[in-house]
Structure formats: C-alpha cells, structure tokens
C-alpha cells in the first residue's frame, strides 16, 4: 500500500533523506553553511523553484527544535500538525485530489520531530460515498502520528453521517493534551432542506457540495451540540487553555458560501470566560485568521483546491495569501503545523506547497495586529 501511494516528492526526499537528517545535529553556524552548500547542490542538479521548498522546510524544522526547548514554565510546549479538506473522489475517478492528500501525508510523515498528533480538518470525501470515506481512511492510516478526526459537510450529507461514524466514531469529543483542553466539534449541521423537496441522498450531497448553491441552509453547531459543549466545559477550569477544532469557522465571514456558522455568537459565549481560546477551522481553503474578543481563529489550508477570498466580510486582521497560480496544481495548497507555547497558544505555520511558508504568531492576533504582522501579499484578491 505504501508503494501504491508514493509520490514524486517522496522519491526525491528519500534520495536526500540521510543528508537532511544529519543537519539537525549541527549547530546554527554549521547549519547555515550546509544549507548554502545544499542550495548549491540543488542548483547544480538543475532544480529550480518550486523544488527549493524542501530546503525551506528543513530550515523550519531546525528552528522549531530550538524553539520547542525554550519553554520553561506553564504547560510544556508541543507541536501538532493538520491536514484538511482533501475532497477525495475514488482514485479511479479522480487522481488529482488523491495525490494532494497523499503528498500531505508524506510531508507530515517527513517531519522530524514528529507531531504529537495530526488533526484531520474535515471534508475527507467529495461526495460522502462509503468508498470515498474508506479510501480516505486508508490514506490517513499511513500517517505515523496518531490522527484526530473531524467531520465536514462533504463527509456527512450523503448518509447523514452513518458511514463516517462507523469508521471514525462520534463526531464530538474532547481530550486533554499537555495541559490544554482540546475539543472537536461537529459544526456543519444544516436545517432539513431535503425532506420537503423529496431529494435523494445523491441530490442532497450534490447541493451541499456546491459552495454557492443557495438551496442548502447555513451551518450550525445546533442546540444539542452546544449543550454537549456546555457540559464538557463544566469540568474544565477557566485557567485551562482551550483548543477548539471545528470544520465551519465558528464566526460569520461570508454567508453565501457558508463561510459561516449561524449560531456562532452562542458558541463564542460559551467560551468567553476562558482567557486563552484558539479555534482551528476547515472549509475555507485559504490563509485566514481572525480575533474576536478572547478567541483566536485560524483557517486551515486544503490539499485539493484553494478558494478565492469572499467578496465581503474578510476579517480585517487577515493578511491574504497571494492569489493562486492557475497553472500550478499545488499552489495555494498545503498543510500546517501548530507550535503550542507554554500559555497553550499556538503559532500557526502554513506550510504552503511551492511557496515560502507563512508563520502567524499567536501574539499577532492577540495584540490585534500591533506586533508580528505577517508580510503583505503582492497579488491580493480583487
């Protein structure tokens, strides 16, 4: 199976794996020298960007390591990774999206040190078919680190979650990790638009899969799940940092595309008494972040396709990524790493394929943009 899912990049990584592993043992000065030499070797091989992104990753891994030993008090720092929004059809129908997912799995597996766990951000499947979900499970099973699953609307609305729950268990759960309370939410409930219209499951998922299809209703966490969240938090002291994983953004960005959670304010109210809260969400397929009161929000990248910034409602703190290059299948896509500090606040590292990575420091959002502003885009959305 591993051979079946191997990508071009993996072969490249294997070729040079030994050399790269050695780099981390070096002190900084030697490291920079080796880095320069490697860059020379890459040039000599005739490899031009985008291939150089691997060097950038090595540099990051080295920085992460020195960073992760810095924590002195509070909760021990840790790192977790995510991949999200793989939107896979079965391979026989569409290779492209499977390739993206496999590449992300391999990239995460190549991280050294390995993440404590890998969050999967939802929308594993494109049309929620059992075969798509099973294939997705098979691909995620190649991850070396433990996987935390989250559900997206593309996984849910064919059979209303039957297959997904059979494969991955309940969609709401929580756990404690190194002093942080982690909550995974099912946040893509929709009001029933199908019964009255007598829609088949295939018709229902097709409507939900259309971002700009107005027949579907807006995402919500819903009464039941909010009660569940309230109960879950009842036993968590307010001094505990919270990490919330949600497929929908848990705030209101752009209604027409369901970049939106209808009951966002009610969910946010439940989190208000905790000073350190971070929401990591899927669905929006872009570099995206926001701060509302005590809550920092980060959108995850997709491995399938990037989405345009919405025409309205973009959070003012978001610094856009450059528009995607239509001629590069991987541009605007990638995966991420979250370095959680001793306050339980993550810095978000967007590992964009074929581009320089972008780090969003937690203090950027918490200072409302006063410090650590990320570089501005050259090609903003219009």
């Amino acid at each position, binding site marked *: 199976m591993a051979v079946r899912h191997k990508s071009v990049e993996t072969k490249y990584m294997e070729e040079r794996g030994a050399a790269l592993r050695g780099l981390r043992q070096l002190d900084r000065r030697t490291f920079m020298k080796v880095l320069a030499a490697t860059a020379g070797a890459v040039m000599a091989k005739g490899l031009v960007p985008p291939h150089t992104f691997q060097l950038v990753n090595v540099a990051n891994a080295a920085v992460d390591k020195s960073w992760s030993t810095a924590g002195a008090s509070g909760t021990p720092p840790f790192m977790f990774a995510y991949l999200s929004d793989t939107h896979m059809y079965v391979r026989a*129908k569409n290779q492209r999206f499977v390739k993206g997912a496999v590449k992300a799995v391999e990239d995460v597996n190549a991280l050294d040190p390995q993440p404590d766990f890998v969050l999967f951000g939802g929308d594993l499947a*494109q049309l929620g078919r059992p075969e798509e979900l099973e294939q997705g499970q098979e691909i995620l099973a190649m991850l070396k680190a433990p996987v935390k699953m989250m559900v997206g609307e593309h996984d849910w609305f064919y059979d209303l979650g039957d297959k997904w729950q059979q494969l991955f268990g309940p969609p709401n759960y929580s756990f404690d990790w190194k002093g942080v309370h982690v909550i995974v939410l099912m946040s893509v409930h929709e009001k029933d638009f199908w019964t009255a219209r007598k829609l088949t499951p295939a018709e229902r998922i097709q409507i939900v899969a*259309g971002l700009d299809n107005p027949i579907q209703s807006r995402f919500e966490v819903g009464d039941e799940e909010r009660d569940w969240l309230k109960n879950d938090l009842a036993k968590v002291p307010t001094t505990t940092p919270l990490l919330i994983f949600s497929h929908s953004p848990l705030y209101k960005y752009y209604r*027409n595309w369901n970049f939106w959670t209808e009951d966002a304010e009610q969910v946010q109210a439940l989190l208000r008494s905790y000073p350190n809260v971070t929401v990591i969400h899927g669905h929006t397929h872009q570099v995206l972040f926001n701060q509302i009161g005590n809550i920092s929000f980060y959108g995850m990248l997709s491995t399938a396709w990037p989405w345009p910034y919405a025409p309205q409602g973009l959070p003012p703190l978001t610094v856009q990524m450059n528009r995607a290059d*239509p001629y590069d299948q991987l541009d605007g896509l990638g995966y991420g790493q979250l370095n959680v500090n001793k306050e339980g606040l993550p810095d978000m590292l967007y590992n964009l394929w074929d581009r320089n990575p972008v780090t969003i420091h937690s203090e950027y959002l918490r200072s409302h943009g006063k410090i650590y502003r990320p570089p501005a885009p050259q090609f903003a*959305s219009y």
Partner: protein
Amino acid sequence: MISKAAFLLTVPSLLAAAAFAALAIPSRAQQQQPTHNLPTAAHGGTIVMLCDGKTGIEVKDLKPGQTMSRAEAQSVADALMAKWQHAHPNEHWQMAQASPAAEASPAASASRGAIAPSHAAPSSSQTQSAANAPAAAPSLTVQQGDTYASFQPRDYKVWKAETDKFVADGKRIFHDDKALGSTIGVSCDMCHPDAANTHPETYPKYQVQLQKVALLRDMIDWCVENPVKGKALDPNDPKLRALEAYIYAQRKGVPLDYGKH
C-alpha cells in the same frame, strides 16, 4: 477630389424584423445570424450601410472585389454620417474617445435621445405603467422615429429575458461537470464559487502559460482542458459562449481593465 460619386438612397428597415425573428427562436444552437438584404445598387456600384440598418448610400463605380483608398473610404463614411445627421437634426453625435469626461456617465447616455429614460430597460414600475397606459410612450420632449426610439418597453423586456436565459444557461454549465465534459467530476464552481476570481474585465491579457495574449474564452478553454480535464470547446460552441456570458454577468459594473494581472 471624390472620384466615386455617392448617391443617397433610403433602405427600408429590415434589421428590426430580422432581430425579432432571431429572438423567437428558442435554441441558441440553431440560432442563425439575421441576414441583411441590401437593396440592389441602382447605378451598378456597391451599397454601404450604416450600423442603424437604415441609412445607406451607393458608391458608384465600386465593383465587387474592388477596394477604396483610405481617403475615398473616409469620404463615403462622411457622406453616410451627413445623411444620418440630416435625418436626425437634433441628435448629438458623441465621439467616445474625444470626450472622456462624458464617458460612462449615466446622464450622458440618457441625454442621447436614442435611449431616452422612458425607453431604457424598464424597471418593473415602468413596465407596469407602459402596459396599462400606452400614453407612457415617448412624450414630445423625446426624439422619435429612428431605430432605437421605435422600440417599446416590451422589447427591452424580451431582450432582457433572452439575455438572462443565456446567462442562466452558462451558470448551469459552469456548475455541471458533465455538461463541461469533465472526465474527473470537476466543475468550475468548485474553485470559483459565483465565478469569483475569473476576472473577465482583465482580458485580453498576456498569459505566460499560453504564451500569448489571451481572450477570456482562451482562459476558459484552458480551464476546461486542465483542472476540469475535458475537451477544449470551439470558440463558437454554444457552451463556451454561454460560459462567457455567465462570467461577464457576474462582474456587472466592474470597470474594464484589460491587461491587468
């Protein structure tokens, strides 16, 4: 100086009838260009028409296959315009490039009698009053008698309905992987909800990958062939035309900005 004498003559209006015939045909695939039957040249020359479909002159001595010099052609154009001006003494002919100040101003276009406010694409209230009271037809302060002025609110309604249908067809295709001929289940809306980021107003522009200055349709075709993995569509394919219509319609009101990246 004018070696070929120009004789003025009047051509009965055929264009309007032809346009209505075209509108009545439901399927765009079968739709034909209205043909314009020119009157026969009375003096053995060539008939040249203005774009209004009414005003024409015969250029004597210009035989089929012959061309005119630039100066001769200019004099024919001048003669045509003079004839049109004569028939429309109060019409102010505006040279678009010469008067940038008036450009794109709704007031300027309204002041052109040809598309007076009471004739403009009707809002629902205008339609209402037009239907109930034929008195809403041009008042004495509005010029009458030329091709445009003879259209009624009803006509604009028909045209709008036709245009909207064309756009709706494009919207359907844009959202339908099968209609696009995708072999991998991918449609345009998956990456371009509401056609966002298609930027039709920036074409023509140089596209590095295509190694040429591309029109919007070239870029649509590239996307049909690549992310969508279908077969490129012929420029006259009704599907390509409809896609183009939908993409433009989504950017109504955005200023043209050709060449922008």
